[in-house]
C-alpha cells in the first residue's frame, strides 16, 4: 500500500482542461459470482434467507430513491419492483428447492431474466444493467458485505474506478464529484464522454489509479493528464492558487472559433435530437457539425414515415437560421443495430453491413430520409448539409451524392471513418462536397481495436500518429480541392488535439456543446503556423502518448519562430 506521506504521480488521458483537489473515494469492486456449490442448509432455510434479502434490498433501494428524487427516483423505484417481483421470487424458490444456496439461486434467477431482456433488445436490453445492479445488491445483503455501486458520501470527492458503466453514472450525484479518475478506458469511453458532457474534471486510463486509497488527497489536472497523490503542502497551495485564478478569470471567450492569427475554425455542435438545439446555441455553437438521426429510429420496429421525420428535421433546422447544419443519414449497426435494417447475425458487426452499406441494402429507407430532409430544408433558412455514414469507397460516395442530388439536396458529403476513405480522400472529395472525419471509428478501424471492448481501450486514442496521418491525408485533399473537412469525433473535443487537427488541414470542429468553451479558448492561443508545427511533432511521434507529450512540451516552450 502506498503510504499516505509519499507523493506519487500517475498519468492518463485528460478530458478537458480542468483541475480539482480532493479526497479519493473508490468505487467498490463488483462481487465475485456466487459458487454453484450445493447448500448445507435446508431449502426452507435458504428460501427464508433469499426472501429476507430480496425484501431488505427492495426497501433499501426504495429509500435511496426517495432521497435521490427526480429521474433517479423513477429508476430506483423500478429497481425496487424488480427485487420484489413475484415471478423472480418463484424462480428463486425453484432453484433453492433444487439445492442451491440463496446467493446462487438469486444470482441465477436474475441472470436468466437479464438474458431474456438482452435478447429482446432495445429499451428492454438497457434495463438489463438494472437487473445486474439489483442482483449484486441482494447477493451483498446475503453475504453481509457492503453493496457495490456508486458511493454516496456526504462530502465532495474524487471518484476512482476501473471504469464507469452508464448504470453507475446515472445515479452519480455529480454535484459531489470533484473529478473522475479511471484506470481503464480511453478518451471515447463512457466515462470520458460523460465528463465532457457534464464538464467534470477527468483523467481516464491512468494506470495505477486503483492503488489510490480511500481518503487519500489527490490533485487531478486534466490539462496534463496527471494525478498527484498525497501532494506536498506546496503542491496543494499551488493548485489552490491556480483554481482561484481560474475562478477569477472571465468565462471562456465567446464568438466564432478562431486561431490567434484570425484563421477561422467554425465550432459546431454534435446533437442527437432537435430538443438539444437551444442548449447548443446558448453554449456558442456556430451550427451543427453532426446531427445523429438514430433517435428517430431506435425505438421503432419500422422506419418512421417521411412526414414524421420531416417534422423533426424542420424543428432542428428552424433553430439554426442562416447557419450550417450537417445531418448524418441513419447510421445503424455494430453498437446500435436496428431490427428493420440489421436483421442477420454478424460475426464482426463493425466490419459488416452497417452505415451506408445497410442503407443501400434498404434503399427506400434512405430515400425517405433524404426526401424528408430536402422537404425540411425547403421550408427553413438553415444551410443543410447531408452526409453518409461509414463510406469506404469512391463508388459509394458517387452513389450517395447522386441519390441526394436526385432527391433535391444541394450539399452532400461523406463521413471518413474507414482508412480506405482517408487514403483515397483526394478522389472521394473530387465528388463529395465535403468530408467529416469520425475519429472514433477511424481510430477503431486503423488500430483494429473494438471501440466497445474494454480490454483494448488503450488502443482507442485519436492522438495515435497513424490516425493523425490519415486525418492529414483528408486535410490535404480538402485544401487542394478547396473542399471543407470537418472532424466530429471525440478528438475535436480535446482542446489541444483540436489545435493539432487544424494544423492537419481540418477546417471545422464539431463536439458536444459542453466542450465548445474549452476548445474555443485553446484555439485562440495559437497561430495556424504553430498548429502546423504541433501537427508535425505529433506525426513524427511513435505513439499516442509520445505525440501528446511532444505537443504538450511545445506548448509550454513556444517555438522561436512564432511571435
Amino acid at each position: 500500500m502506498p503510504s499516505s506521506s509519499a507523493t506519487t504521480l500517475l498519468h492518463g488521458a485528460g478530458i478537458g482542461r480542468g483541475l480539482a483537489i480532493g479526497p479519493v473515494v473508490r468505487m467498490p469492486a463488483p462481487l465475485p459470482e456466487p459458487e454453484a456449490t450445493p447448500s448445507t442448509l435446508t431449502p426452507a432455510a435458504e428460501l427464508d434467507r433469499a426472501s429476507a434479502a430480496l425484501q431488505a434490498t427492495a426497501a433499501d433501494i426504495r429509500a435511496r430513491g426517495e432521497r435521490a428524487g427526480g429521474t433517479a427516483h423513477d429508476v430506483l423505484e423500478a429497481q425496487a419492483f424488480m427485487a420484489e417481483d413475484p415471478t423472480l421470487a418463484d424462480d428463486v424458490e425453484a432453484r433453492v428447492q433444487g439445492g442451491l444456496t440463496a446467493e446462487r439461486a438469486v444470482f441465477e434467477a436474475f441472470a436468466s431474466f437479464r438474458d431474456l431482456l438482452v435478447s429482446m433488445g432495445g429499451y428492454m436490453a438497457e434495463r438489463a444493467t438494472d437487473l445486474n445492479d439489483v442482483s449484486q445488491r441482494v447477493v451483498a445483503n446475503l453475504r453481509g458485505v457492503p453493496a457495490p455501486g456508486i458511493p454516496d458520501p456526504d462530502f465532495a470527492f474524487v471518484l476512482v474506478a476501473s471504469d464507469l458503466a452508464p448504470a453507475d453514472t446515472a445515479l452519480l450525484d455529480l454535484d459531489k464529484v470533484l473529478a473522475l479518475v479511471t484506470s481503464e478506458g480511453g478518451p471515447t469511453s463512457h466515462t470520458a464522454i460523460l465528463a465532457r458532457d457534464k464538464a467534470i474534471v477527468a483523467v481516464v486510463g491512468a494506470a495505477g489509479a486503483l492503488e489510490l486509497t480511500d481518503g487519500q488527497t489527490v490533485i487531478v489536472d486534466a490539462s496534463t493528464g496527471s494525478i498527484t497523490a498525497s501532494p506536498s503542502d506546496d503542491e496543494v497551495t499551488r493548485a489552490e492558487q491556480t483554481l482561484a485564478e481560474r475562478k477569477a478569470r472571465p468565462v471562456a471567450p465567446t464568438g466564432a472559433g478562431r486561431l490567434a492569427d484570425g484563421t477561422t475554425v467554425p465550432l459546431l455542435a454534435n446533437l442527437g435530437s432537435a430538443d438539444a438545439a437551444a442548449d447548443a446555441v446558448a453554449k456558442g455553437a456556430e451550427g451543427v457539425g453532426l446531427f445523429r438521426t438514430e433517435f428517430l429510429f431506435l425505438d421503432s420496429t419500422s422506419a418512421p414515415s417521411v412526414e414524421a421525420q420531416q417534422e423533426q428535421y424542420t424543428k432542428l433546422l428552424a433553430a439554426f437560421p442562416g447557419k450550417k447544419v450537417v445531418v448524418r443519414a441513419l447510421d445503424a449497426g455494430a453498437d446500435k443495430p436496428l431490427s428493420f435494417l440489421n436483421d442477420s447475425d454478424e460475426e464482426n458487426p463493425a466490419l459488416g453491413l452497417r452505415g451506408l452499406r445497410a442503407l443501400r441494402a434498404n434503399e427506400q429507407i434512405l430515400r425517405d430520409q433524404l426526401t424528408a430532409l430536402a422537404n425540411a430544408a425547403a421550408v427553413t433558412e438553415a444551410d443543410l448539409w447531408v452526409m453518409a455514414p461509414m463510406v469506404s469507397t469512391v463508388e459509394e460516395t458517387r452513389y450517395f451524392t447522386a441519390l441526394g442530388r436526385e432527391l433535391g439536396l444541394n450539399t452532400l458529403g461523406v463521413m471518413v471513418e474507414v482508412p480506405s476513405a482517408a487514403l483515397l480522400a483526394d478522389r472521394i472529395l473530387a465528388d463529395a462536397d465535403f468530408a467529416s472525419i469520425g475519429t472514433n471509428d477511424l481510430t477503431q478501424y486503423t488500430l483494429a481495436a473494438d471501440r466497445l471492448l474494454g480490454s483494448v481501450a488503450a488502443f482507442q486514442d485519436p492522438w495515435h500518429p497513424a490516425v493523425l496521418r490519415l486525418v492529414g491525408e483528408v486535410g490535404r485533399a480538402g485544401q487542394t480541392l478547396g473542399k471543407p473537412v470537418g472532424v466530429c469525433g471525440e478528438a475535436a473535443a480535446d482542446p489541444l488535439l483540436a489545435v493539432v487537427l487544424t494544423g492537419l488541414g481540418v477546417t471545422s470542429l464539431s463536439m458536444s456543446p459542453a466542450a465548445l468553451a474549452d476548445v474555443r479558448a485553446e484555439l485562440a492561443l495559437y497561430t495556424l503556423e504553430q498548429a502546423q508545427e504541433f501537427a508535425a511533432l505529433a506525426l513524427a511521434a511513435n505513439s499516442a502518448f509520445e505525440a501528446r507529450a511532444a505537443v504538450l512540451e511545445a506548448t509550454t516552450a513556444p517555438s522561436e519562430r512564432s511571435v
Partner: protein
Amino acid sequence: MTERTAQIASSHGLHARPASLFTQAVAKSGVKVNIAKGDGKAVNAASILGVISLGIESGDTVTISSDDANADAILDDLAAMLGRDLDAE
C-alpha cells in the same frame, strides 16, 4: 375463475412504462391476477418481469383471469386499462 380479454392499445405494446403501470395496478388491487397472451401460458400479472417476458405487442389479444370471487370489478378496470394507450398517458 373470472376472465376478461383485451386488445393491447399501447403503441409499443406492454413493455417499459405501460408494463410498469399495469403491474403496479395489479399489485395495488391486492387480488391475484394472471395474464396470458393468446393461448400461451399464464403468468402473474403483478410481475413486471413475468409480463415483459411474454413479449406482448400492440394489437395483441391477452386474457386476464383470477380465481378471486370478488375479481369482477378489478378485472373490468384492468381490461379497460389495457385497452388504453398507456404510452400516451
